């Protein structure tokens, strides 16, 4: 299951990443393995998405979200 496959309101726990470069940036932003993420909304045009992670709201493109694999 990838983060990009979650619907609004659904939660998941980050397991690993498929893109090393992206993972470095995501982890810096508090999106680490073991962290709970919740999709809080999807942009009106379907992309990007906003997720709730480590206490704040982060937006990222679907392509970027698809590099995050959930447990």
């Amino acid at each position, binding site marked *: 299951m990838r983060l990009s496959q979650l619907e609004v309101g659904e939660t998941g726990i980050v397991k690993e990443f498929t893109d*090393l*470069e*992206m*993972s*470095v*940036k*995501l*982890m*810096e*932003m*508090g999106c*680490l*393995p073991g962290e709970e993420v919740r999709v*809080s*909304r999807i*942009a*009106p*045009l*379907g*992309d*990007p998405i*906003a997720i709730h992670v*480590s*206490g*704040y*709201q*982060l*937006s*990222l*493109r679907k392509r*970027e979200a698809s590099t995050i694999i959930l447990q």
Partner: protein
Amino acid sequence: MNIDLKVALVGNPNTGKSTLFNVLTGLNQKIGNFPGVTIDKKTGICDLPDGRHAQIIDLPGTYSLYPKSRDESIVFSVLADRSNPLRPDLVVVILDASNLKRNLLLYTQVADLKIPVIVALNMMDLAKKSDIIIDVDAFARKLGVPVVPISARKIEGIDKLKQAITFANKFALQEDTIDVEALAPQLIAQIGREIEVENPYFALQLAHQHETLTFLTPAQSNRIEELEHEFSFHSQKAQASETIARYSFINDLLYDTVTKKETAQDQTISNKIDKILTHKTFGFIIFFAILLFIFQSIFAWSAYPMQLIADFFVWLQGTLHRLLPSGPLTSLVVDGVLGGLSGVMVFIPQIAILFGFISILEDTGYMSRVTFMMDRIMRKVGLNGKSVVPLIGGFACAVPSIMSTRNIENWKDRMITIMVTPLVTCSARLPVYTLLIALVVPDRNVWWIFNMKGLALTGMYLFSLVSAVTVAFVMKFILKARERGYFIMELPVYRMPRWKNVGHSMYDRAKAFVLQAGKVIIAVSVILWVLASYGPGDRFQRIEDKYKQPRYTQHLNAVDLNHVIASEKLENSYAGALGHAIEPVIRPLGFDWKIGIALITSFAAREVFVGTMATIYSVDGDAEKIESVQQKMHTAKNQDGTPVFTAAVAFSLMMFYAFAMQCASTVAVVYRETKNWRWPAAQFAYMTVLAYLASFITYHLLK
């Protein structure tokens, strides 16, 4: 003023860093540029309780010392480069108390550089509201640094922070956060020996960032590269394990010092607002309403102060002409330089208004929602969600709009936005279009309600937007990206704007424009003024002598005579000569030498076209009184008796003005924003080529 201490403010974006900077320094601020890059360098003086003066440096907000963009890379070079004149003696790390976890990552990195650190815990009020309880003493003990709870917005805890700065240690006493050496033991040791850095984390950062750091010599950088190969160092893998180690330190730290009850209240309010503002339909309606409002304000509200500024300069020029002895020097100063200065000052209202709005949008957190909503469409054409604001602002004026592209982090997106913004129909084109449309488009209604003239004008506006988007799309393939295009972006909690920051931003931008772009604009206007006011040889004298003859003075009244003289002088000036000279080039576009002169004189500002036409056709006229110019242009005939301004010529001219970069201020501001003459040069070249082609095609299609 004597500077006793240099203090850098470091923190994540949206932590209230600039608010704190404004509170600490008041009006003692200086805004410049970091050398070679277009990042605002804000410094200011803060008076400490013991009478010493601290220089405060506001560094760009960043989430990590590993930069995502060029702006962020400044932070590490200022902190680490020993030869940098801004290198701080003390770093104040600002942490958002309501979001400590992510904020602490940057703290741990800065702390490991072993520069003396103080922590300012900002937004304590917000944290309290969200039921976050922080044991500040335990927190400070664990970190080994002074921790000062503050609220920059409410100006609470600032005195305590100033005291902490005053009594700060000269030596770094903070606890280690992670075992840095374990990340790459041999490499760190070897770099430490060869480049002579004592601090292991500094050595590690050099390994990661040596390619972009300007303070390393090429030899040093190459040596680090060799060492990386020798010890098979993988930068991203090392960064990943470092970040994981740091978060595990942070989790331990927070576990002992922070307690939090679930469902933070502020989040839910923000969430409710987001439900409306990023709604599928309302979101766009509200956004376009806001854009329309901003556009309307730049357009309408700025008109009055702009008129005041223009009137003031006219008055000043008139007065000086009366007071000073007439002569070439007076004329140069009063007509040339003051004229140019007036052309600079007149932009201030538009710049201030646009930046007022942008600052409000940024401050409230709405700007990142705009990016969030618009990203998908804008990305397709090579732009950024944030490009919408400069593009729409371009309908009023490209100058403030190009300045506003600074908040686009991605280099490529920003450059493309800068390159296409001047294509959007700005208010200076309006008088040109109005004049030409009135000349050739019949005043008739189609389908009862649509006036043809109105349709033509609307058409020009829409056409400009289409051409801007098309050019952006093409540039997407031409420009090479400097950094990988991330979108990972925080959506901050909605807040009320801080009016002081808004005021600061309006003032700063206007000042930066006048001081930095002003020089170029004045220089260009003076050159153009000389070209239009002087002619080769004794031509001007001969004209004056000619019209002193009774056959002119007796048959024409003084006003008409002056018009005729002015017209003939312009024709015989250097600008006139140039107009004649370029006629073969512009003939295929349907333009004669008279239009050529107008193209040259309006080189610095498009609206000058109308005034030049008035002078050439020897009538009194400016942007407000165009009827008389229109009349003259309407009846103007070529030598063979055909009218000069046919529909083909008028539309060809409009196409020319739609594309050509006839604006010295834009050129100057593009230079200021890109710090490289190649950008304005390339922009000027492509716009001129497009203008020529579009005019040529239009003329030959309609002829």
